[in-house]
């Protein structure tokens, strides 16, 4: 449910997103990263694309095909979503009385520490300033959607049980 909400928020906010004016120095991938590991993603890859590709390369020893890469990316996306939603359920389940507040906090936290911090620090995305502010807004909205849906679903499950 959370992932569906996230996808929905992303689709709805798409018209708002602007691209950052390209700079000649964008050719320096190391300039676009804050990761001590250096850039781990290719210029056209999302964080989930990159993670899927890296895992595949480690296991299989070669680059995945574009189709496989897409599947892997979705796998990572869904797997990560399920993982963090479970974490939310485990830590908040049974005590949640204010799903709106908790969902917003959870989504914001996930966005801040995952999307804005962990992803660039691991080199799976560029440094935050490499993206147009509207893209940050879009990912925030998507994560808020995910957080709210996760909190709502948790509340629903608890109410039924």
């Amino acid at each position, binding site marked *: 449910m959370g992932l569906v909400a996230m996808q929905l928020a992303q689709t709805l906010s798409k018209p708002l997103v602007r691209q950052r004016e390209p*700079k*000649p*120095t*964008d*050719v*320096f*991938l*190391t*300039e676009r990263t804050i990761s*001590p590991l250096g850039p781990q993603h290719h210029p056209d890859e999302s964080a989930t694309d990159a993670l899927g590709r890296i895992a595949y390369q480690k296991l299989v020893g070669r680059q995945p095909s574009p189709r496989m890469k897409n599947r892997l990316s979705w796998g990572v996306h869904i797997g990560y979503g399920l993982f963090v939603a479970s974490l939310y359920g485990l830590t908040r389940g049974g005590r949640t009385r204010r799903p709106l507040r908790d969902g917003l906090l959870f989504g914001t936290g996930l966005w801040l520490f995952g999307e804005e911090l962990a992803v660039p620090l691991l080199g799976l995305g560029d440094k935050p300033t490499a993206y147009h502010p509207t893209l940050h807004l879009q990912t925030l909205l998507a994560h808020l959607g995910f957080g709210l849906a996760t909190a709502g679903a948790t509340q629903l499950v608890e109410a039924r049980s």
Partner: protein
Amino acid sequence: MSETVGDFVTQRLYAWGVRTIYGYPGDGINGVVGAIDRATPKLRFVQVRHEEIAAFMACAHAKFSGEVGVCLATSGPGAIHLLNGLYDASMDNQPVVAIVGQSKRISMGADYQQEVDLQSLFKDVAREFCQTCMHPAQARTLIDRAMRIAMATHSVTCVIFPADVQEERAIEEAPRTHGAVYTGVGYSESRILPHPDEIARAVEILDEGERVAMLVGAGALGCSEEVMAAADTLGAGVAKALLGKAVLPDDLPYVTGSIGLLGTRPSDLMMQNCDTLLMVGTSFPYADWLPRPGQARVVQIDISPRKLGLRIPGDVLLHGDARDTLRLLVPKLRRKEDRAWRRGIEAAVADWWKLLEARAMTSADPINPQRVFWELSPRLPDDCILTADSGSSTNWWARELKIRPGMMASLSGNLATMGPGLPYALAAKFVHPDRPVVATIGDGAMQMIGNNTLIDVAKYWREWEDPRLVVIVLNNGDLNQVTWEQRVMEGDPKFNASQVLPPFSYADYARTIGVEAIVMREPADIVPGWEQAMATRRPVVVEAYTDPEVPPLPPHITFDQAKKYLESLVRGDPRRWRMIKESAKQMWAGVVR
């Protein structure tokens, strides 16, 4: 006909094209010195204050003339004093011949006064050729071989003459007996070119590269046109090792300047992000500033096969002369139509010059050393020769001074010794008396050997067609490069007992020996100081009182460096508050420019 072996030696050196010998006399070499007197004015003896200066000058003579540099010293202590300058020549691959005296043959092995085992002393630095002349008939062979081997291998050679041999009657031609040899004068450079198959492989790699970087060094001096053609075809940027500073002018938008700890940000960015590296005539030592293993494919060109694949594994190693190899290679390359990489490099270079200006214009106490160099750069005479010493001043020399076409520049590249800045400048004046010379030196090197060399400047300057020799001394009272290394590499605070220099007025000293002097005590003195220095028709010492706490920031700061810097603060660096303040100002200048 030669009278003595000493006379024969001087005549033979003259026949090889030697016109100047840098040295210091002593009783172990008097037989040759007397012969040089008799050979004057065909041969010129340049007496300097210390044998080390003579060896540095021989090295610089080779660097600035392309000829063999010759230095001379007496036995024992004089010979020992030569060593540092000879190592400088050896490590920078310069042809230098050392003529050294020795105890008489009857004293050798007697633990005699000043008797040193010179064969052993010089066997490393003159590893290509080091021989003792034990018989007058040997002199011809030894001089011929020393000269030819120095030229052919770009190395230091040494001939040792026992004092009594120098005074013996010369034997120009050995008697025709079994064992006698008859060497001759003359050497001509070969044209060394790689195999065509290797050129084809290099073309393939360079054509496939999408982000090509070039790194050029001393081996590319004199082939600017070829390097520019290669860079243009490949859409590459060009970084320069310090000894290759004069390969390309710095006003070309794709020249990223120096590389390494003393290097520039665009050079660093280019190396970190390239997928192909073309190295031309360089054995730049710091592999940590080159592409990471597996990051880039490497094509290397070098005249010396010993230098190939030395710092980074090469995919194609081309043994050949830089100019001739590039002339073969470049026409076969496909011009890169996608210029995005090149545009990125040019943008980074333009940004770098703005950053340098912002850093240079930041205030300091009393003067920011970067500003001294920043203001000097546009005021350098067109055809000047630049020399540098080793120390924190080398950072600013490497980064701030923009080389223009026709200029020459050198320093102790691989030995990176303190001391050669002024001896190099003096040698440059002997080689090119019609060109202005600008030497940059720290106060440590000035106290070590520069002040003595300044006496030689005072001695000789009236002979020069253009008497301008500008000596910049950064007076910060600190062995500054090492102080920063103690802080940033060891995490140690500045150790005053080892780092602080005794106060000394270089300007007052210069005036007492008849050299002009200009003092820069505050930023307002800098521009008028340079204008006056460049307009003065005699040697000038420019003493700039600079701030030792302005950090020589590297192109990127590693986590370990940052940690060590903080450790030095925590451990109580005596200048910690000023360190913090000046570092913050330098960093801030980069943010707000």
